[in-house]
């Protein structure tokens, strides 16, 4: 346990600087975009009034008022970038130990104790990055809404609307916590898959490694297809039971991916 915590601490420490930079850049872009869009909207109104010799209310009627959801498009982009970052991190957290000037993988594999702490420390690091992104992005969303309220003039703002999400952002930031848990679960499964593919590639040389990766990807796709097809076609189960079984399938795959990865780490992995 101690080794696992130490290793997780080390993994996070190694990426911390980059993580902070990414988070700060994302926050800056998002928050600045909110203010920029408010200012742009104001400018558009002013331009309309000048060009058409219209009153403010006419301009607002023509162009429309602004609500916070209208200014959150950059949050969607940043969320997507965050997803890409997590996927890249899931690969990089392994490959950086093999590639580059120093070969930290030697040090890891020579550590006393069981090798599963190596695996789980990296999994924990990626998982923490993922959920911290989700949580922090939420905080930025809220901060953005306060910034919006502060920067926009009252008459330019759409009347009281409790919705702070654009429709595309709603897909990620739902008010249904079940959806959030579902997203985290599926994401963790994908991270487990990535880890398995990396370890397969690292356990075999060159072409053989790529072949193994292709086979494993095919296995995953086939498994997913069979499960979804079965759930779709079967009449033996009710929808609530199918939901539970779907979650079960996800867990089964995660356990399989972790088990295989641990076996590779123990018996097959090569520096």
């Amino acid at each position, binding site marked *: 346990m101690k080794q696992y915590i130490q290793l997780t601490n080390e993994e996070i420490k190694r990426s911390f600087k980059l993580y902070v930079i990414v988070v700060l850049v994302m926050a800056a872009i998002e928050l600045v975009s909110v203010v920029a869009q408010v200012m742009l909207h104001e400018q558009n109104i002013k331009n309309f009034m000048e060009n058409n010799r219209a009153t403010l209310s006419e301009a607002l009627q023509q162009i429309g008022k602004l609500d916070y959801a209208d200014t959150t498009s950059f949050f969607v982009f940043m969320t997507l970038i965050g997803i890409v970052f997590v996927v890249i991190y899931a690969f990089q957290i392994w490959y950086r130990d093999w590639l580059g000037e120093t070969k930290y993988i030697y040090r890891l594999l020579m550590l006393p104790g069981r090798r599963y702490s190596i695996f789980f420390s990296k999994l924990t690091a990626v998982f923490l990055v993922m959920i*911290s992104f989700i949580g922090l992005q939420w905080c930025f969303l809220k901060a953005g809404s306060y910034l919006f309220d502060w920067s926009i003039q009252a008459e330019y703002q759409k009347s009281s609307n409790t919705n702070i999400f654009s429709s595309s952002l*709603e897909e990620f930031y*739902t008010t*249904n916590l079940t959806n959030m848990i579902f*997203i985290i679960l599926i994401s963790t499964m994908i991270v487990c898959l990535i880890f398995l593919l990396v370890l397969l590639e690292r356990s075999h040389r060159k072409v053989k490694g790529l072949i193994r990766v292709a086979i494993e990807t095919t296995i995953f796709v086939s498994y997913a297809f069979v499960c979804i097809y079965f759930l779709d076609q079967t*009449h033996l*189960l009710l929808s609530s039971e199918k939901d539970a079984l779907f979650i079960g399938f996800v867990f089964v795959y995660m356990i399989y991916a972790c088990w295989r990865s641990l076996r590779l780490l123990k018996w097959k992995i090569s520096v």
Partner: protein
Amino acid sequence: MRSYKYFIGFILISVVSLAFYVGYVLNLEKPELVVETKSGSPKQSTLQNLQINLIDVVRQPTDFSVSIKDGQVSESKSSYLNNMYLDRVYINDKAPRSFKQFMQEETYTLMQDSVTYGLKGREDGSWELQYWDLKTKKLTTKQLSTPSEVNNKKYAYSPFQRTEDLLYVERNSMDEQTQRSFIYVIDLKNNSVRKQQLPIKLKKNEYIESFYKGQLLFSQTYFPKNNPDTEQQRLLMTDGKKTKRLKQLEGEDFNTRILNEGKLIVTINENDETQLSWNTFDMESEKYTVHQVPLPDRKKFPDGGGFPVSILENGRIYFSYQLKNDDYRVLVFNPTSANIEYEGNITNKNPKIKLSLSDMRLK
């Protein structure tokens, strides 16, 4: 010894930031829904346990189900997970699992007067019939031998009406609408199936609406010469000897519903924002009634939307619509006498939350 500050720090960041999110969701403002009865008793038996479903469309689909009987409000949210696999047919929660599972198979269904019927054709040509009575909470299962010409692979046998102890079943071809001159009748008392000749042979564009004591009510679609792009519908009744058109029941925006085990035909127009109008026709007495109930306080939606909801069951019309002050009116009345048996309002005391009418169910 090295500190674990990064590990602990990250966990704190993750947990605290997620906690904000969870806290926001859990503290989201909710509507305060209150039932105010204007007339009639919410506990009367015809109401059963009438539930009006309101939906918060602004912030993720959240259903608020209001019980007229006791004013209880239950909330349910649809998630990605439960939108992936929806039950083919909605079955009341209290029904046994075996029935719910049976209804997911290739069954043909009928819901009438709080009873849900499912009919399934077996490979050996027989039928399995199961039906769940919501009022008595009783499940009945029957294995039925069928006449020799019944072919479950080629045709779909779909129940369309129950009258007393007879369940009428229509035969449809999988490929195309064929001419139909007969239906099947399941006698629920002695578990038999027999063929029943229809008074006339129905054509492709003709559809059974009701069959009552030898009288067939059917609809006929056509494209009028002066408006060839718009399909119209005629309602006709025949006993095989004479056929008459029930013109008084017809009308644009009028939907045909069958009540009282096929005896009462109701056509109802819910889309008129100024009034609710419906016509009835008694198959036995062949008498018409025409009714309008003005709805002066019904909210108008110039851009569309704001649709009312209704159920026609148990010989009653259950009708709900949105008022100008954003409350929701619930009316229950007898379609022939227009006697209002229940009138009530659902008021949302938290006007910040905008809701829409979604559904109405009898539980």
